[in-house]
């Protein structure tokens, strides 16, 4: 059994979880820890940090663009670990990134460094369940890293149950089958989310991909344990109306309404 900041969070809280995603090294290289600290202060429950990749094929235009700029800024896995090492945080943190950069870094070395810098979980969209289970599960567990899988309305019930069995953090339910942030509206996915809920999975469910507003967030939280906001947050910090810190703080409070 994995015991870390993330599993402790789920033991303590199971409703209205707010998870914010942002890309490491964006808008500027050194912004990673500024955003992380401000999100933590603003009271988000957990944070996903994206490791930029040159070919992010599960992402829409907003995250593609932020990844491209982050790479131009000089972001890499090593730089990110160094940034996280020097910043103290108590909020659960997950890293989200594509498999190739992680593989080139060295999977075990990567897992070890994650633990050292206070990372609790990983989302690697192009690491399929079968490969994870047969080759990497033991390494992730050795370094207390939860692995998070995605499900969509097209995922069969059997497959969802299989994914649940191998999940030790949460399940990431994509609200409508799409690359991140491309649909202009949060589809009313209540039927799908209710179906997920009715399966009585052992893992908490967070839903994401097209959530933009407090209204979307509340709608999502009615059905499942929480919501993930990515592209909309990136859009906000791309065009800050005030300082980066204030932009982060204002956005989070607009969602939580406090």
């Amino acid at each position, binding site marked *: 059994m994995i015991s870390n900041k993330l599993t402790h969070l789920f033991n303590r809280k199971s409703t209205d979880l707010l998870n914010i995603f942002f890309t490491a090294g964006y808008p500027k290289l050194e912004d990673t820890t500024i955003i992380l600290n401000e999100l933590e202060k603003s009271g988000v429950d957990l944070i996903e940090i994206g490791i930029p*990749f*040159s*070919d*992010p*094929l*599960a*992402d*829409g235009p907003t995250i*593609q663009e932020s990844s*491209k700029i982050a*790479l131009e800024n000089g972001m*890499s*896995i*090593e730089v990110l670990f160094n940034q996280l090492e020097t910043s103290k945080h108590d909020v659960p943190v997950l890293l989200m990134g*594509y*498999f*190739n*950069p*992680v*593989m*080139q*870094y060295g999977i075990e070395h990567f897992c070890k460094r994650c633990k050292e810098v206070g990372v609790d979980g990983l989302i690697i*969209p*192009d*690491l*399929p*369940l079968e*490969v994870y289970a047969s080759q990497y599960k033991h390494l992730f567990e050795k370094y207390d890293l939860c692995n998070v*899988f*995605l*499900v*969509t309305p*097209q*995922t*069969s019930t059997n*497959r969802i149950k299989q*994914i649940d069995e191998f999940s030790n953090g949460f399940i990431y339910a*994509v609200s409508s*089958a*799409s*690359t991140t942030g*491309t649909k202009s509206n949060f589809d009313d996915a209540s039927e799908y989310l209710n179906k997920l809920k009715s399966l009585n999975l052992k893992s908490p469910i967070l839903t994401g991909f097209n959530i933009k507003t407090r209204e979307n967030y509340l709608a999502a939280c009615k059905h499942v344990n929480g919501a993930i906001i990515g592209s909309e947050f990136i859009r906000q910090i791309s065009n800050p109306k005030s300082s980066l810190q204030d932009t982060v703080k204002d956005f989070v409070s607009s969602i939580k309404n406090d």
Partner: protein
Amino acid sequence: MSKYQVNEQGFYGEFGGAFIPELLYPNIEELKENYLAIEKSESFQNEFQQLLKDYVGRPTPLFLAQRLSEKYGAEIWLKREDLCHTGAHKVNNTIGQILLAQRLGKKRIIAETGAGQHGVATATVCALKGLDCIVYMGEKDIERQAPNVARMKMLGATVKPATSGSKTLKDATNEAMRDWINNPEDTHYIIGSVVGPHPYPDMVARYQSVISQEIKNQMDGLPDYVIACVGGGSNAMGAFYHFLDDPSVKLVGVEAAGLGIHTDKTAATLNLGTPGVLHASRSIMMQDKDGQVIEPHSISAGLDYPGIGPAHAWLKVSERAQYMAVTDEDALKAAVECSRLEGIIPALETAHAFSVLKDLDLKSTDRVVINLSGRGDKDMNTYMNELNLK
């Protein structure tokens, strides 16, 4: 089973697999479950063979190139894929995949294209079958392959520019995969080469294997060499396929060296790359130390790709095939030579294959087959500019 064929898990040795986001799992499962049974079915085979014959114009001739033979002191045979309907081998695969898509009940077809040949071949079969067709093409390629863009439009396809990254084939592939993620139910993605997640590399190789099947039938005995250019590797795999287990046949793949393999403007993946995962398969790819993909360069849009099909990575590592690299400049020279000695203007991609004749140390008894993957009509803009033909 041959050690060069894909195994049950979708791997060629250490290469291949399906490193797909869960979002594509149902689509890939559906293909994996069905592609072999559909290919074996009588209805598929009847229609496939009939279309290859009456629509594509197969079998394509195997032509003894007398003047090239004289020049290089060996018997040089040309497998005339340039004579296929639409002008390249690409249509063998799109015929196979459109028949598959129909049998899976798909209504909408997407594709990526580099040189535009695969896009044209896809638009063609979509017109033939009355299916919607959307082709993703890098912005840079839209410019340098203008005639093919017009052909796709004339055939009723929508051409969508890929504006990210190097704005070439790799980026068009990313866009096509994103489209598939967004349209998981009614859409089939016709990949244009032996790349992508399992079962694509095997499926495309099977549809292209008609090339080597015909060469075997057309030749008396075995050739000593089979030579083909390699972008993703589909025409080469088609030409190698039925010779993989004939060890006396030397298999030669030819990559694009761009400005040279010692420069940073190159697409010589197997000569310069390292193992990694690109477009959902583990193969050899051009990447930096952080695992970010390096943007390739080749004068030829169809070879301008930083990856290669996993089967080729395996043929290289297991030393069954050798992979040479030819510069932009040498490819242009070879294109002129083939035009003037044989009266055949080859595609720029194909011209790379001709350029290695001078480097192979051929004996007079050697019988060499070059897969003439496509004709040069689409490249006339580039030829006019580079060769001062205006």
